[in-house]
């Protein structure tokens, strides 16, 4: 009798992959093999309910990933061979890449480690397979981003030691501590934090409008790695949504736990993305979309639809979303004016926006820009013109949880600084907001251990007590090359010579 060689359909293939990868242990206790599966209080009654809607099997995974890589590297080669960096809109743009390489790419690597570790913690084979594939994706993101930006490293400053900087530089502790916080949580909190709150709810804001902006500024290499990474992200986001639904469907006791995680990780992610708000509004010389517009589309609209869908599980929108929605009118401006003051201690340059850019901001932020922020830039511009370019020499007060300097204002009161403090076991702790304070109160033992860069400098743990020593020796930021104002910087001069414009001071030297 002839054996019928039936081609398996997607559902069958996925079933085989995830069913045959799981078995009941016989000579070890399940509890010993998966020791971290229940300490968070999450109850899983039936792992077989786990569904990955993409049902990707290893053979198709490798096939499609290989194709993505081929396309990506063909573009990197073309970009390098054609000196693509000469065709960007303006060299100020490269500063967004410096922030990306030191702040975001190391998070991709942290995500790789996080998923590799977390995948090991689940007794369900479907969840293990999904985490394993995602771990490989994230490693790819970290690597392709470094490859793409290595071309810029040949021509611009500040890109030479990203991994080292990520571990040490004051503002990079914001992204670093975000991911460390997630990775040191239990496996279900990690997935809620990264797969759901971060990837599903928030990363669109970085990888979609910002990357589209990179294209609009002539950077084909970056938009290509961005979109190539994001094509994996479509899977990760789907996983994020499925994870939440799976956990919520398993047991009603899971609902309040998950709600607390959503509240926490929405806020942690929102604070982290304040860096992106500034990249979009200030660091893209050709503007595509303002931060507030992106927030409206990718959070208010899409997040609104999502949380409406989750209502049936008893989940409500994140507790502090109103504060985040209100902040869309202020965020990028408050961030940029802060970084402007601390450019002596960053691996990228800052500048005062040009007149057309300020007009664009007045148009995009009609209720806030002219009233609160334009006057600051006019003042700073006057100071700079008088030879007193402003640098703030007082180290900022950092929030114990998100580690952003306490620079934000209260909801509905844009001239009132938002600050909370409390005492825990005799020590006083400071916070940027009610939300961060609340996160601390729930897990004080975790957050009292935070490595706060400013405290570390004052405690003498950063190779010196003065800013110059810390910046040069401890951060590996080259003084006079990587840091300070953009105008007149070596990057600026290099750009002028690429464009065939003679910088003013070279004229003087020639004379």
């Amino acid at each position, binding site marked *: 009798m002839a054996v019928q060689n039936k081609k398996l359909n997607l559902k069958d293939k996925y079933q085989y992959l995830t069913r045959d990868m799981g078995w009941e242990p016989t000579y070890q206790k399940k509890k010993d093999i998966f020791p971290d599966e229940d300490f968070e209080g999450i109850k899983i009654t039936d792992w077989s309910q786990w569904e990955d809607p993409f049902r990707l099997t290893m053979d198709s995974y490798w096939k499609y990933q290989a194709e993505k890589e081929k396309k990506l590297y063909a573009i990197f080669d073309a970009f390098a061979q054609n000196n693509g960096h000469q065709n960007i809109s303006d060299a100020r743009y490269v500063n967004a890449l410096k922030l990306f390489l030191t702040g975001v790419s190391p998070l991709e690597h942290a995500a790789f480690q996080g998923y590799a570790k977390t995948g090991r913690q689940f007794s369900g084979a479907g969840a293990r397979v999904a985490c394993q594939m995602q771990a490989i994706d994230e490693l790819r993101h970290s690597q392709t981003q470094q490859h793409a930006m290595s071309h810029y490293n040949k021509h611009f400053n500040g890109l030479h030691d990203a991994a080292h900087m990520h571990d040490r530089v004051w503002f990079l502790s914001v992204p670093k501590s975000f991911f460390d916080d997630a990775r040191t949580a239990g496996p279900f909190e990690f997935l809620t934090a990264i797969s759901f709150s971060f990837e599903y709810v928030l990363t669109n804001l970085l990888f979609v409008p910002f990357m589209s902006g990179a*294209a609009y500024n002539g950077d084909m290499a970056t938009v290509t790695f961005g979109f190539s990474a994001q094509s994996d992200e479509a899977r990760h986001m789907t996983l994020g*949504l499925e994870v939440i639904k799976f956990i919520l469907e398993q047991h009603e006791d899971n609902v309040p736990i998950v709600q607390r995680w959503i509240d926490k990780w929405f806020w942690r992610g929102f604070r982290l993305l304040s860096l992106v708000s500034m990249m979009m509004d200030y660091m893209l010389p050709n503007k595509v979309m303002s931060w507030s517009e992106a927030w409206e589309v990718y959070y208010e609209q899409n997040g609104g639809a999502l949380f409406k869908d989750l209502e049936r599980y008893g989940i409500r929108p994140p507790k502090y979303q109103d504060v985040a929605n209100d902040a869309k009118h202020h965020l990028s401006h408050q961030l940029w004016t802060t970084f402007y003051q601390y450019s002596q201690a960053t691996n990228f340059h800052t500048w005062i926006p040009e007149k057309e850019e300020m007009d664009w901001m007045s148009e995009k932020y009609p209720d806030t820009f002219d009233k609160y922020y334009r006057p600051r830039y006019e003042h700073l511009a006057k100071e700079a013109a008088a030879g007193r370019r402003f640098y703030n020499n007082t180290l900022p007060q950092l929030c114990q949880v998100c580690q952003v300097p306490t620079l934000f204002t209260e909801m509905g009161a844009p001239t009132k600084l938002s600050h909370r403090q409390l005492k825990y076991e005799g020590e006083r702790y400071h916070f940027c907001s009610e939300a961060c304070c609340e996160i601390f109160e729930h897990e004080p033992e975790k957050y009292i251990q935070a490595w706060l860069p400013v405290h570390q400098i004052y405690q003498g743990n950063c190779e010196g007590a003065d800013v110059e020593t810390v910046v040069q020796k401890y951060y590996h930021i080259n003084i006079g090359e990587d840091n300070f104002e953009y105008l007149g910087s070596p990057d600026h001069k290099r750009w002028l010579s690429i464009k065939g414009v003679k910088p003013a001071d070279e004229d003087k030297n020639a004379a």
Partner: protein
Amino acid sequence: MSQLVFIVFQDNDDSRYLAEAVMDDNPHAEMQHQPAMIRIQAEKRLVMNRETMEEKLGRDWDVQEMLINVISIGGNVDEDDDHFILEWK
């Protein structure tokens, strides 16, 4: 309240067919062009059919091929051999 699902493609040759197929199969959808990307959104539901794509391309097409060109999605995913659906129920 309106509940939009969406899909974003890289703006390239493959995606032009994808976008066309999606627009044919979803008359209620709206297409937006932004630098380097095509974004399609629709109230509640978007479906992509293998059959429509195969007609457009004049060749066999595997639903999972779209993974190469998709940048982002919003909505619950339901995928099998014949279609890819995004929806809020």
